[in-house]
């Protein structure tokens, strides 16, 4: 497993390299430019000042040189400063990534906690009232737009019942109780939709597994039904579920601009969105690179988890 992990980490290098090249090229294609963002209306057409700022920010050099300079510094851990706030990019990311990771992990955790039992029970009690309820609920979850569900949650739990805050963020390192209090609604909004997908997937995986011969064998050997279901069948059925949950988590860690806006959640989605609008190259580059690393690492962890769930799965 160690060799496999090292190999996978080495494979990340070309992936991340291509990612940075694509991102750098993509940013150049955006309409407008950073000088228009930095400069006021009064001097927007002043060629001297524009040239000065281009030089000041190193934008007067050919794109491949700019990229080379950026890459050289990034390899030494220096992502530069935001062109807009002039704070180190590391600080900008450090402020927003934890909030996103926190919401993503809890949201996915919540979805798994809901989906695994619900999907399993629906499969075991196929065509029962429980199954139909689970299917209808998950269908609703998939059909309802995430932002609408979030708004409904705010109206119900914040405005009408007054149980939960409607928006805001408290770091778990500052005050865990308050942090969880502010997290419940955003995590519910994230988790409900993800749970809907995962429930349906778990149910269908379980049904597939339950029709396999090893399940009949286990039953014929006299194992109890809970043992057959939860020790053998569910374990094998989890592989696609884990795959999808991993992808969902990676997707969430990329930021959810709409949910972050509804809950005034200071996450990476808003940060990168604004950086793109402002053409804040260093922040866009570093943000996407860090997110790329997170996605690759999550995928690696998912692959390693296969092996934990089923030792017969060959790694490599």
């Amino acid at each position: 497993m160690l060799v496999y992990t090292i190999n996978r980490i080495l494979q990340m290098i070309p992936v991340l390299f291509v990612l940075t090249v694509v991102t750098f090229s993509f940013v150049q294609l955006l309409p407008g430019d950073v000088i228009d963002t930095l400069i006021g209306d009064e001097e927007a057409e002043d060629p001297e000042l524009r040239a000065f700022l281009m030089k000041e920010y190193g934008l007067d050099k050919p794109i491949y040189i700019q990229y080379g300079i950026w890459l050289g510094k990034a390899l030494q851990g220096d992502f530069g400063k935001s062109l807009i706030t002039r704070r180190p990019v590391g600080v900008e990311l450090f402020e927003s990534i934890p909030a996103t990771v926190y919401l993503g992990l809890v949201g996915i955790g919540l979805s798994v906690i809901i989906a695994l039992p619900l999907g399993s029970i629906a499969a075991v009690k196929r065509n029962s009232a429980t199954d139909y309820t689970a299917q209808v609920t998950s269908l609703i979850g998939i059909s309802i737009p995430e932002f609408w569900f979030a708004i409904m949650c705010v109206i119900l739990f914040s405005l009408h019942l007054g149980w939960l805050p409607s928006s805001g963020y408290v770091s778990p390192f500052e005050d865990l109780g308050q942090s969880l209090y502010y997290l419940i609604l955003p995590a519910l909004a994230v988790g409900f939709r993800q749970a809907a997908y995962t429930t349906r997937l778990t149910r269908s995986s379980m049904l597939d597994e339950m029709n396999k011969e090893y399940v009949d064998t286990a039953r014929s050997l006299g194992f109890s039904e809970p043992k057959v279901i939860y020790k053998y069948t569910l374990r094998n059925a989890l592989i696609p579920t884990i795959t999808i949950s991993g992808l969902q988590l990676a997707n969430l860690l990329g930021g959810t601009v709409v949910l972050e806006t509804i809950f005034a959640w200071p996450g990476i989605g808003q940060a990168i969105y604004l950086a793109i609008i402002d053409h804040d190259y260093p922040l866009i580059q570093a943000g996407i690179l860090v997110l790329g690393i997170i996605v690759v690492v999550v995928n690696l962890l998912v692959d390693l988890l296969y092996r934990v769930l089923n030792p017969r799965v060959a790694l490599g």
Partner: protein
Amino acid sequence: MSQDDIIKKPETSTGPTRRQFLGAAGAAAGAAAIGGVATEAQAKRKRNPSRGGTVRFATRADSRGLDMHRNYYYYVSHPLAATSMGMMDLNLKMEPVPGIAVGHEVSNGNKTYTFNLRKGATYHNGEDVDAASIKWNLERILDPKVGHSFVRSAVKDVSKIDVVDKWTVRLHLNNPSAVLVPNLTYYPIQFMAPGSVDKADTHPVGCGPFKFKSWKKFDSTVMERFENWYETDDQGNALPYLDGLVGRPKKEDRVRLTALRTGEVDLIDNMSYADGATFEKEYGDKFNTWPVPQVGTGYIGFNWKNGPFSPKNPHGKLLRQAAAHAVNHEAVHQAVFNGVSSPAPAFYSDVSPWYMPEIKRRYEFDPDKARFLIKKAGAQGEPIILLSRDAYAYMHQTGEIVHAMLSEVGLNVKHEIHPYSVLKSKWRKGEFHLDSSANSYRPDPDAWYGRSVYSEAGSTKLRTGFKNERADKLILEAQNTLDKGKRHELYMEVENIVNEELPMLYTHYIPLIQAGVKKLKGYQPAFPGPYSTQRAGLRTAYMS
């Protein structure tokens, strides 16, 4: 002897006399200021024992960055605006009144300004707000490597700064100007402690009523009361009353309103016009609603640089007139502003000291006349691009309605909504014909006419490209005229030219609706914003 040659007696820290400030540009409210300025004797910083608390203020916008010279703190929304001050303060009518400077002299034909500074005013780190620090601040702003061009534009004509003594600073200008004093108010000029420059991007140290504590982008700006601030209330109690102020940026209007209703914040700005129309009626027993009649003016700008509306087209003026006749201001008023705003025949509304009641709209809504003029101009359905900014709903909503109205009279209009950086690129390249936009205020009208109507101004060149020799002459004359009545007349003539020639068609005065919990007392919203209005806004607010 001309008015600008009158040498005024330097003032003591008790504040200026009424005569002294009436003599200065835009300083009609000296009397109002007198009571609000603390003497050193008063500066024992006595606090009103029953007033304090912390206000959580949800704003539409968050600051872009912390360095107050590289950025500018927008006076309506950015909470950081509470942390610093300019040379002058503003009163409720947005007129300049004593701030860090308690008096000034104008000499050398409006080319030299000598400011007497308030003795005892300090930055939050204890440094004196003295002449040397003012010189350092202004020179840093003037450095193109540092100063944001909007900030720098307020003092761009300053050629030299002399420290006369610890409490006197003299500014020499390249050209005569009557608008320097209002340009030195806190928006956009703000002073930071020179000793804090290394932390300007991470922990700014200003000289305003609140001290910076922390900033988390998109999350919070935490500030605490500056215990050594100079302003006092009528009873001599130190201002501000509040112990703290927490800015909570929440971009969406409904998110802010919900946070107010659920008790997560105490005050919100920029309530949507749709909610503003009914909120007081529905929730007046639980919340206070404060309408601020005008924080800006909306307009449709015409591209004079190229395209069908420009003078390069022999029928450009006919088409501008046609477009003006096609716009139903009442419909915009109802549909976009829910009846909360008022149509704008000129740039300043009746709440401004620069209101011009004599100005009437030149081209009233008349779609038949618009069709006639389009036909007369021989327009053949050339594509017309109308731009709007994405960040402000009223801009693109006005754009959508104007798009429909112009299409209705036969113009072939395409409406595009973009972020500011893209808009600026399109303005610069002339890739537009109409522009649904708005402008908010700096205290002096030169900030509008001198920046957006004067043909040589960068903003005019960037956006409309308007050129009119008579308007230019009037604007330059007004820039060098201290007498307010005379300037009013000059600007009125400019406004008549604008209404006739149509570099832009004024549409509406942009109102601002704020709301707060009943426990928030003493809050008086103001034209110049909630942070830096003398003896108003958040300076006099407290939680009961």
